[in-house]
C-alpha cells in the first residue's frame, strides 16, 4: 500500500498543493454547475472583480492582509506540532486589546498610539492563545478541543462586553465608540496621495506592510533562529527534543503565544485599519480561512502570502460575483476553503500518491 513517496522537493512543496487546489476549484465549479450557474462566466466575474480594477485590487489586498495574519498564526503553531483552530477567538480578543488600548490612551499622539494599539491586539491575542497552550503543555488538555472552547468563550465574552460594558452611550448597536482619529492606520490611498501619487481609494491600509513584515519575521524565526529550530524539533519529534535539551512544554507555550499574537493582526487590519471601532463578528470566519491558507502554503511564509492572495481574490471577487450572479453568494468562498482544507490537508496523501504515480510513469516513459 505505501508506495515509495520520494518526491523532488519542488514537487512536494509546489506541485502537490497546486494539484490539490486545482482539483478543489474543479469541484467548486461542479457546485456552481449544480445550482444551475455558469462556472466560466463566474470565474470571469471573479477575476475581473478582484484584479480588473485598481479599486478591486485594493480590496483584494485588504483581505489578503487578513489571511496573511491568520495563516501565519496557524503556521507557527503547526511548526510546533500544534493545531491551533482558535484563530477566531484570538483575533476577537485581539480586537478587544486594540480597542481598550486606543480608547483609553486617546490623549497620546498617533505615532505612539498606533504601535501601542498593535501591541494591545498582539498581547490580548497571545494571552488568549497562551491559556490553551499552557493547558496543553502542563495539564495535557488537547489543544484542539481547548482552542475550540476558547473560540466560543471569546464570542460569548465579546457579546457580553459590547452589549453591557463597552457600548457607546445612546447607541443601539453593540459596538464601541469610534477609535480616536490619530489611531487610525493610514489608508494606502492617503499614503500615496501624500507623495502626490493618486491611487483608487479602498479599505487597503498600511497593515499590509505589517503583515508582510510579520511574514518575513516568521521566516527568520522558523528557519533562521535557534528558537525556530527548537520549535521545528518539537513539532517533528518531541521525544528527540527532550534529549536535545529542549523543553516541549516551554516551546508549546511560546509557539502559542506567537500564534495568538499573529492572529491579533487580523484585528489590527480590520479594526484599526478600516472599521475604526470594535464590533461584533468582525473576524467573519477569517480565522478558519487561515487554516486553509496555512495548509495550502505548506506553512511557509512565501506559500502563505501566495495562498492569502488567492483567498483575497476569492473574497473580493466573490463579493463582485454575488452582485452579478446573485445565486452564487459569498458562501461559495466558504465552500472553496472547505474543499481546499479537505484536499490540501486531510487528503494530502491521496494527492501525493497521485503526483508520485504520474512522475514515476513519465520517468519510466523517458527511460
Amino acid at each position: 500500500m505505501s508506495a515509495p513517496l520520494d518526491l523532488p522537493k519542488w514537487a512536494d512543496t509546489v506541485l502537490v498543493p497546486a494539484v490539490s487546489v486545482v482539483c478543489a476549484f474543479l469541484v467548486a465549479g461542479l457546485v456552481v454547475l449544480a445550482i444551475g450557474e455558469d462556472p466560466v462566466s463566474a470565474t470571469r466575474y471573479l477575476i475581473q472583480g478582484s484584479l480588473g480594477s485598481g479599486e478591486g485590487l485594493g480590496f483584494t489586498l485588504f483581505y489578503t492582509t487578513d489571511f496573511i495574519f491568520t495563516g501565519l498564526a496557524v503556521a507557527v503553531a503547526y511548526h510546533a506540532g500544534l493545531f491551533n483552530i482558535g484563530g477566531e477567538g484570538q483575533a476577537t480578543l485581539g480586537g478587544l486589546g486594540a480597542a481598550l488600548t486606543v480608547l483609553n490612551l486617546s490623549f497620546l499622539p498617533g505615532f505612539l498610539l498606533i504601535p501601542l494599539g498593535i501591541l494591545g491586539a498582539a498581547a490580548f491575542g497571545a494571552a488568549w492563545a497562551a491559556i490553551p497552550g499552557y493547558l496543553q503543555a502542563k495539564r495535557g488538555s488537547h489543544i484542539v478541543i481547548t482552542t475550540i472552547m476558547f473560540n466560543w468563550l471569546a464570542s460569548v465574552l465579546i457579546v457580553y462586553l459590547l452589549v453591557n460594558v463597552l457600548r457607546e452611550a445612546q447607541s443601539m448597536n453593540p459596538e464601541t465608540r469610534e477609535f480616536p482619529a490619530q489611531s487610525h492606520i493610514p489608508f494606502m490611498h492617503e499614503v500615496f496621495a501624500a507623495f502626490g501619487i493618486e491611487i483608487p481609494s479602498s479599505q487597503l491600509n498600511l497593515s499590509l506592510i505589517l503583515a508582510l513584515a510579520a511574514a518575513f519575521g516568521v521566516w527568520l524565526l522558523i528557519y533562521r533562529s535557534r528558537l525556530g529550530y527548537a520549535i521545528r524539533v518539537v513539532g517533528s519529534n518531541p521525544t528527540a527534543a527532550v534529549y536535545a535539551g529542549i523543553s516541549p512544554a516551554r516551546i508549546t507555550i511560546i509557539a502559542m503565544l506567537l500564534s495568538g499574537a499573529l492572529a491579533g493582526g487580523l484585528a489590527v487590519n480590520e479594526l484599526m485599519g478600516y472599521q475604526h471601532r470594535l464590533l461584533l463578528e468582525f473576524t467573519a470566519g477569517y480565522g478558519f480561512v487561515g487554516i486553509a491558507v496555512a495548509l495550502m502554503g505548506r506553512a511557509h511564509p512565501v506559500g502563505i502570502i501566495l495562498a492569502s492572495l488567492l483567498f483575497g481574490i476569492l473574497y473580493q471577487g466573490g463579493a463582485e460575483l454575488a452582485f452579478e450572479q446573485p445565486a452564487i453568494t459569498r458562501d461559495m468562498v466558504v465552500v472553496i476553503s472547505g474543499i481546499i482544507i479537505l484536499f490540501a490537508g486531510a487528503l494530502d496523501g491521496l494527492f501525493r500518491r497521485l503526483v508520485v504515480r504520474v512522475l514515476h510513469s513519465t520517468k519510466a516513459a523517458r527511460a
Partner: protein
Amino acid sequence: MEFSTIYAVLDSALRLSIPLLAACLAGLWSERSGVVDIGLEGKMLVAAFAAAAAAHAFGSAWIGLMAGIGAAVAFSLIHGFASISQRGNQIVSGVAINLLAAGLTAIVGNAWYGQGGRTPPLEGAERFQDALFGHSAPVYFALLAVPVTWFVLARTRFGLRLRAVGENPAAVDTAGISVTGLRYSAVVICGVLCGLAGTYLSVGQSAGFLNNMTAGKGFIALAALIFAKWRAWPALGACFLFGLLDAVAIRLQGIALPGIGEVPVQAIQALPYLMTIILLAGVIGTAIPPRASGVPYVKER
C-alpha cells in the same frame, strides 16, 4: 418558584438537550472506534437542511428524517474516507466538513428558495407532531439511542471489537478482524445519529431550516462527550445538564435574582465551555479519550 415553572423549565431543557444528545452519541460511536470527529456541527447542519428541504418537497417529516440521515451519512463517509482510507488528519478533515456544510447549505438554500438560505416554513405533516407527553418521535429515538448505545458497546461482540479498535487497533487486526470495516461502520452510525440530531432541529423543534441554525450545538455536544468521558449514560446526563443550562438562560433573561441581581445570559452560555476546559485541565477528575483516537491505523508497521 412554582411547580409549573419548574416543570416548564425541565420540559424545555429536555427539548433543548435532544439535538445535543443525538450528536453527542454520534461522536461517542466515532471516537470510541478511534476516529476523532469535530465535524458533528457540520453534519448536523447538512442534515437539518436536507431534512427541511425533503420534508417540504414531499410533505412528510419522515421522508425529511431519511433525507437528513442520508446527507449526514454522506458527509460521514467523506470524513471516513479521509481519515480511515487515506489516513489523513482527522482534525483537518473535521474542520473541512464544518466549512463545507456551512457554505453548501447557505448556497444551495439560497439557490433553491431565494430566501437568504431559509427553507420555506413547514406545517402540518411536514413537521414532527407531538407523539407522547408533548414530545415528538425523534425525542424518543434519541433517548432510546442511549440504552442501545450502552448495550451494543458494552454487551455485544461488535461493541467489544469496536471499542478495541479505538484502543488498540493492531490487536484487533491480529485477531483477523477488519479495522477499516469496524471504523467505517462506526462512522456510518455516527452519521445516522447526526442526521437525527439535525432533523430534529429543523423539522421537530423549529418549522424549517435557518442559516447556520446549529449555532455551535455540535461543539457543545463535543464538550458533553468529553464531560461524559465517552460513555453513553453519562452522555445523557451531560447533555441534559447543558440543555438545562440553556433553558435556564432563556428563562432568566431580564429577571433579577434575589441577592445576585440579573445574571447575564452570556455567563450561563459560557458554562458548558468553561466546565469542559476545567475538566480537561484535570482540576476535577480526568477525561481520557480512547487511546487510539485520532491516530490513523497503518497495517504494516
